């Protein structure tokens, strides 16, 4: 072995060196090596050999010899001269590819539709997830802007409040030198009436308050007005573009006056461009915080007494978050309205949306779930393409055979099939792009997502699309290309049948995977639907159907009695009730207290109602207060609900027991009823029943509940109600909501999830069926002759249909077995978030399986019946 050069180097050289140079180069290298061995010894010769080999990694050596001298033509006898990107062959590939698409419209459209839908949907989901993950990164100081959160302990529960009193922020800024900038922001309290002139008077939500520093810190962009002074003085308001157009049309509104809450004129000092959707800072208008105490009693009351401001700090770059958090505790001393036991935390601005203490804990998880679903859909679509293409391989096997026989290289065939998949995916890609652009606003609206068209103009979107496109082309093209190009020309040209088996196993796996996914999603959809139905129909302990809640402003106190009497007259005495609470929303007053008996910390909902409330809403009594039947009550009564009685450890007759530390003992007890969503159990509740003459119920505004007759024409009834209301000289426009609607809105998130899953289920089923249809068509084509022979020998139509369908049905059944436990587990997790939930009954799984089998059968039967009915003479004659 003394004189052999390094083998590894040789192998490397063989790998990259063009075939036609191999002999001379290897020869030269070896001759040189021998000479070097004799000159400098073997060890150094080996080194030189490596150096020389590496020296050949040059474009010229990798390329074939390019010689245009015709005299040398005979040299080419030893090797082929075609190179892959050969223009003539390329043209041939294109024309073959188009012909293939054109000649098999069914297959092509199945392929393209499947891919288009898959791409469009998964891109949409990916966009949404990307949007969710990129909240608040654009602000100029985003990496050192923090929100203060105070956390206090109530018994077992730690409750965090991001809203703080205004003095806290200013003290922090004054006392802690590391705080560079302070932004206090609130997005307002409920509705506010704005008016620019007689014709432009509307009720607005999200009219917020903020320090002037919000403009530079949150990077607000102005269309009109001066960013430096826009909020620097009291009495100024900036509007978003949308709101400005609503009141002032297209003209520049800067300097114009806008009346706030009927009495308080503000000057418009700027108009903002549309706010970025990926920010937790959302508002429609912004009033300078300094003007808040001058905007009426209510606003002043809030300003002076309430913690309502999200307080953001921009820290110096060298500040340490942990140190600042410690210092915050010392700041609180000497301030009003601050819980002395509270701890303070800083949350970085970009983390607020997903990881903030106020954010729902499962938001990250649900995004990952969505991403998984997107991936599943994309995979299904790609799988579809692969299985359809390989199934059609039989048709192409002769082409492959011929190409190979006339000298086509395997690499060329691989190139050809890649090119074809590239063409198809490009077509699908283009279509999905159009689809996405067209359906984007609609999808956002239907799914209630906070995104707008601007997302489509961003770089990451295009990056994502192109990335997906390339990956899809490669994945979808890879397997067919390798499989088809591997055919043995001698076998396929002879007509040997072994190609029928090629990839059949893989296709079977693919079909199973597709149906597993669709059956799994189908089960999820069914469980979601049943749970939602359960929530809608569950007896809440009060009758919420056909109840209108009419909002009464606190300034309407003088007119209230008259209005109520008028409504009572119109709707009937027993159909009208009053409460101070917006039922079925999260704004229910809650008291924190301690039971004296059990020493348990309690969070008690406190609601004020009038006497007719109980009968009108159909609430069941456990213990009626003494003298309830006598009619009008003379003093305020305190009513507990059953849960409060239980939680506070009262035994025996509650009416004779001492109270919990709230201080008021029970005059009566009612059965539990829900005023919030069924995610949680009924919380302890204390109702105060006030007399008709009481004013306290309207202290912060209240609601007149009116039950409409079951057969009333609702729009008409609302019109009449509005007339009655308008006759009472109201201070605010007519406003109402239906308890039913409000209750349903509590499940908006679940509703959205359900709609998403319904969509996904439909999609995966569609894709799976497209695949199945393709495979069935193929399988029937292959077995035409077999079916003919069977029919001649006396097989019945049913027999043949069963024969053809059997294989696929087995796969669907297998998919069912795999999908059921997975879906059961996933949905069980989801149901844990409800205090009241359904049991997942066997019929859900049976139904999902049944539907899947039915759809699969329908898809398959389309082809199998056609095949079974075919005249055997025809299929057997054609040779």
């Amino acid at each position, binding site marked *: 072995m003394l004189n052999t050069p390094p083998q590894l180097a040789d192998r490397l050289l063989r790998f990259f060196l063009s075939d036609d*140079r191999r*002999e001379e180069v290897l020869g030269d290298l070896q*001759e040189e090596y021998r000479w070097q061995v004799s000159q400098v010894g073997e060890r150094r010769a080996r080194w030189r050999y490596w150096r020389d080999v590496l020296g050949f990694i040059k474009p010229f050596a990798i390329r074939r010899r390019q010689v245009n001298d015709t005299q040398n033509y005979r040299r080419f006898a030893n090797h082929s001269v075609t190179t892959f990107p050969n223009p003539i062959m390329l043209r041939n590939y294109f024309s073959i590819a188009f012909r293939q698409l054109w000649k098999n419209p069914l297959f092509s459209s199945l392929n393209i539709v499947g891919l288009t839908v898959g791409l469009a949907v998964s891109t949409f989901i990916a966009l949404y997830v990307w949007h969710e993950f990129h909240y608040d990164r654009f602000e100029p100081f985003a990496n050192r802007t923090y929100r203060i959160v105070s956390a206090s302990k109530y018994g077992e529960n730690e409750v965090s409040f991001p809203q703080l009193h205004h003095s806290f922020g200013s003290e922090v800024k004054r006392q802690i030198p590391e705080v560079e900038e302070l932004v206090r922001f609130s997005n307002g309290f409920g509705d506010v009436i704005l008016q620019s002139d007689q014709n432009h008077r509307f009720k607005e939500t999200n009219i917020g308050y903020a320090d002037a520093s919000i403009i530079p810190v949150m990077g607000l962009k102005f269309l009109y007005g001066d960013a430096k002074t826009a909020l620097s003085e009291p009495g100024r308001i900036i509007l978003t573009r949308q709101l400005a157009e609503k009141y002032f049309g297209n003209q520049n509104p800067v300097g114009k006056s806008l009346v706030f809450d009927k009495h308080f004129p503000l000057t418009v000092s700027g108009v903002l461009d549309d706010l970025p959707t990926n920010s937790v800072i959302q508002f429609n208008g912004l009033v300078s915080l300094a003007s808040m105490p001058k905007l009426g009693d209510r606003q002043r009351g809030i300003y002076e007494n309430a913690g309502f401001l999200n307080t953001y700090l921009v820290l110096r770059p060298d500040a340490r978050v942990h140190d600042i958090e410690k210092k915050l505790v010392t700041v609180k001393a000497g301030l009003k309205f601050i819980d002395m036991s509270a701890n303070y935390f800083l949350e970085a601005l970009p983390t607020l949306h997903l990881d903030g203490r106020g954010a729902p804990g499962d938001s990250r998880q649900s995004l990952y779930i969505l991403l998984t679903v997107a991936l599943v859909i994309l995979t299904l679509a790609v799988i579809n393409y692969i299985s359809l293409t390989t199934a059609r391989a039989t048709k192409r096997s002769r082409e492959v055979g011929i190409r190979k026989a006339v000298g086509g290289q395997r690499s060329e065939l691989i190139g050809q099939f890649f090119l074809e998949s590239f063409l198809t995916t490009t077509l699908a890609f283009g279509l999905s792009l159009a689809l996405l652009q067209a359906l984007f606003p609609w999808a956002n609206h239907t799914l209630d997502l906070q995104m707008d068209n601007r997302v489509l103009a961003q770089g990451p979107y295009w990056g994502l699309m192109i990335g997906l496109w390339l990956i899809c082309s490669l994945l979808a093209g890879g397997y067919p290309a390798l499989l088809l190009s591997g055919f043995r020309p001698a076998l396929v040209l002879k007509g040997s049948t072994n190609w029928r088996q090629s990839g059949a196993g893989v296709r079977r796996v693919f079909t199973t995977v597709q149906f597993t996914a669709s059956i799994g999603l189908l089960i999820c959809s069914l469980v979601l639907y049943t749970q939602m139905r359960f929530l809608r129909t569950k007896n809440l302990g009060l009758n919420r159907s056909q109840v209108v809640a009419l909002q009464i402003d606190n300034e309407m106190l003088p007119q209230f009695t008259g209005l109520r009497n008028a409504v009572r007259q119109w709707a009937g005495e027993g159909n009208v009730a009053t409460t101070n609470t917006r039922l079925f929303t999260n704004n229910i007053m809650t008291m924190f207290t301690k039971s004296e008996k059990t020493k348990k910390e309690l969070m008690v909902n406190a609601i004020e109602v009038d006497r007719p409330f109980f009968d009108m809403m159909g609430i069941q009594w456990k213990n009626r207060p003494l003298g309830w039947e006598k009619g009008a009550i003379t003093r305020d009564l305190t009513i507990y609900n059953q849960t409060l009685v239980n939680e506070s450890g009262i035994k025996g007759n509650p009416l004779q027991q001492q109270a919990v530390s709230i201080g008021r003992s029970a005059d009566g007890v009612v059965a539990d009823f829900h005023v919030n969503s069924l995610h949680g159990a009924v919380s302890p509740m204390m109702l105060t029943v006030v007399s008709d003459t009481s004013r306290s119920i309207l202290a912060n505004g209240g609601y007149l509940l009116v039950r409409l007759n079951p057969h009333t024409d609702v729009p008409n009834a609302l019109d009449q109600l509005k007339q009655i209301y308008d006759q009472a000289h109201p201070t605010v426009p007519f406003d109402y909501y239906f308890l039913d609607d409000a209750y349903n809105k509590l499940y908006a998130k679940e509703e959205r999830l359900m709609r998403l899953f319904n969509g996904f289920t439909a999609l995966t089923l569609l894709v799976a069926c497209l695949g199945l249809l393709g495979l069935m068509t193929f399988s029937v084509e292959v077995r035409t002759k077999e079916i003919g022979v069977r029919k001649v020998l006396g097989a019945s139509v049913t027999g043949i249909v069963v024969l053809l369908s059997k294989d696929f049905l087995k796969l669907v059944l297998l998919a069912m077995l795999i999908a059921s436990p997975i879906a059961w587990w996933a949905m069980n997790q989801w149901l844990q978030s409800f205090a009241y939930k359904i049991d997942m009954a066997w019929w859900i799984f049976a139904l999902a399986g049944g539907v899947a089998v039915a759809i699969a059968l329908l898809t398959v039967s389309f082809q199998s019946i056609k095949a079974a009915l075919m005249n055997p003479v025809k299929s057997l004659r054609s040779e």
Partner: protein
Amino acid sequence: MKRSYLGEFEEIVLLTVAVLELQGQAYGVAITHEIIEQTGRSVRLNQIHAALDRLEEKGMVKSEMGEPTAERGGRRKRLFTVTAYGRRTLQEIQEVRVSFWSRLLNPLNLTIIGG
């Protein structure tokens, strides 16, 4: 007169081919060794192959496979010969140089100044 451009290194390789082809030895290794010997440059095999490739593309040399020899592991050599076009190009280069040299009165002075 227009002709295709020939680099200095290419010119040397072409000349070497012209010399060695008389003995039928104008192939990679032999050319490399000859150039190293004559010019003292450190030349590597891949450079010679690249230059020969370019020369062949330009049509200055042509080549054919020779007989296999044992010292090459039984592989054949690619033997190069200079084409008529290559010869003419060499001659033209030579003529251009001679005509410039002849116009210098005292070539030695130039060497001194140049040195």
